[in-house]
């Protein structure tokens, strides 16, 4: 039974340290932007570790790295386990890396204990999971799952004006080959990912493992508010068309509508005021709005209400307001059988768990289109992530990796079930 497997905390820590050495500066956090030299170095290290664990390694057309351990029966789809190794600039050492370290620990245990499972096992590190370089995240898993075609992303540009196409070429990959990375439903038995929570739910609940039931997806839009820029001294209050006071009403409406909806979170994360001078009535304001939920219908309803609120502000204040949708993704529900198994295995290990939604996007939300997918989350200290202060205690990582390994053994032995 699965309880015979015990993960090795020192080996997990040693792999995490090895990845953290690449691109980490003690004061500035990580520097491992997607397809950068350090990102490739980290993937080269992964390649080396997988090789030494006896895995058959493969880099696909988008630079996703796979390592395969064969099962006892030929022709069966592999259980896919892993996460990503790219990092947000100035981010921490745990985001993505703990998922890869947990997957490597599963293989190390299987090799050490000479466990052969019926289904093959594949460790994966997806490329370009973070959106910090190209403005869109989970690119590698999105390509694998066919969520978007290569042409829809190859012309994305980074802050230096470098296209994804060029970044791939500089990483030794052929952009014309990206389509070959796409996989089909049935290619994988299931996908399991462990990740840091990036929130405070687990810490507040004193739980060690979050079992993810669904991954929230964002709808993001840009709101352009146009009024009239005027002299702040010479323009009477009644004659003004102040874009910023209109924007302020919109910001408060967004907050109120999210609070009323309950299972939707909304953020106005950026506001740009033009011309932005102390003696000028603001003529133009741009807002960036992020709406997320695991309930697609609830999210759409809130977006509709926000639109109505914006129309009302435009009418009342005589402003020209336009909305440009940046992304509109559908929330993903993870597999009920996988969730049930993960919860049962938490209970076998007496590890305090909590079922929860993931507010952040992950590779699992795309791979869930190909096969049953499940995720567990490890607590983030103070909920901090994407920052050098990001921290997850080793004991929590080990507790998560233990259940992760138990689950991998269960699924690779018995399949996912009916």
């Amino acid at each position, binding site marked *: 039974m699965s309880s015979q497997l015990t993960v090795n905390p020192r080996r997990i820590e040693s792999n995490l340290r*090895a990845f953290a*050495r*690449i691109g980490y500066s003690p004061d500035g956090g990580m520097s491992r932007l997607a397809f950068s*030299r350090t990102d*490739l*170095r980290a*993937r*080269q*290290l992964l*390649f*080396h570790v997988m*090789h*030494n664990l006896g895995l058959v*390694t493969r*880099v696909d057309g988008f*630079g996703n*790295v796979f390592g395969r351990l064969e099962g006892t029966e030929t022709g069966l789809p592999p259980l896919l386990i892993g996460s990503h190794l790219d990092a947000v600039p100035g981010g921490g050492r745990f985001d993505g890396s703990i998922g890869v370290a947990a997957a490597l620990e599963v293989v190390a245990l299987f090799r050490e204990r000479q466990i052969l499972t019926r289904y093959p096992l594949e460790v994966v590190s997806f490329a370009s999971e973070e959106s910090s370089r190209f403005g869109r995240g989970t690119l590698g898993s999105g390509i694998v799952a066919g969520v978007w075609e290569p042409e829809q992303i190859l012309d994305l540009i980074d802050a230096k004006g470098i296209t994804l196409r060029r970044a791939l*070429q*500089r*990483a*030794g990959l052929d952009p014309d080959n990206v389509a070959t990375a796409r996989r089909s439903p049935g290619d994988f038995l299931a996908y399991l990912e462990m990740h840091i929570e990036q929130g405070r739910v687990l810490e507040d609940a004193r739980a060690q493992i979050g079992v993810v039931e669904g991954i929230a997806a964002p709808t993001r839009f840009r709101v352009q508010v146009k009024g009239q820029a005027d002299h702040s001294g010479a323009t009477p209050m009644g004659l003004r068309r102040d874009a910023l006071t209109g924007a302020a009403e919109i910001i408060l409406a967004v907050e109120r509508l999210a609070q009323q909806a309950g299972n939707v979170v909304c953020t106005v994360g950026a506001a740009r005021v033009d011309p932005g001078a102390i003696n000028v009535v603001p003529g133009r304001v741009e807002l960036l709005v992020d709406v997320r939920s695991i309930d697609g219908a609830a999210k759409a309803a809130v977006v509709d209400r926000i639109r109505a609120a914006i129309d009302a502000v435009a009418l009342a204040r005589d402003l020209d307001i336009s909305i440009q949708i940046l992304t509109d993704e559908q929330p993903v529900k993870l597999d009920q059988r996988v969730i049930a198994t993960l919860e049962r295995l938490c209970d076998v290990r007496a590890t305090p768990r909590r079922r929860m939604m993931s507010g952040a996007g992950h590779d699992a939300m795309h791979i869930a289109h190909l096969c049953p997918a499940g995720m567990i989350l490890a607590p983030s200290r103070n909920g901090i992530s994407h920052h050098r202060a990001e921290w997850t205690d080793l004991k929590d990582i080990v507790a998560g990796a233990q259940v992760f390994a138990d689950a991998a053994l269960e699924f690779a032995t018995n399949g996912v079930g009916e």
Partner: protein
Amino acid sequence: MTPVAERPDNEHHVLDEKQIGQLLDELADDIVNHYRESTEPCLIGIRRRGDVLAARLRERLAGRMSPPPPLGRLDITLYRDDFDSLSKNPVIGETDIPFELDGRTVILVDDVLFTGRTIRAALGQILDLGRPARVVLVVLIDRGWRELPIAADLVGHTLITEPDDEVKVLLNDTDGIEAVILRQAES
């Protein structure tokens, strides 16, 4: 490939196939004498000629070191200090070290030691991939003009050169010919 005999006046044919073979014999002897007793020795050659030389050294060590040191290949593209100006694109997986580096004695092998920058890059990568007990450097040719504080532990042959001279080690496996060529800079 121009035959060695027909090379221009400023090209000197420094070593031929037989001499290269003799140098490798001597280097293999030295490796046995110096590192036979060291902790888990392994050979790592720097692509794309150091790896060929490392493989040839390993053949010569077979039977004299037990077990024979395992062989790895290093592609240092991602670690070069002139990375951004490189035309060659790095490829994940070109580096192929099918054993753990922790605690080992790494015998690093390259064809020509010049500025030391290649070796610096190789050391950077080796230390990312593991924590060897010790790294030693074996080169076929040391041509001087170091730009970094790096020295070889074992040297096959030392060449007196000018900084703008070109030293090429040509091997059957990569070049279809066996020779060491010194091309002197036009003055």
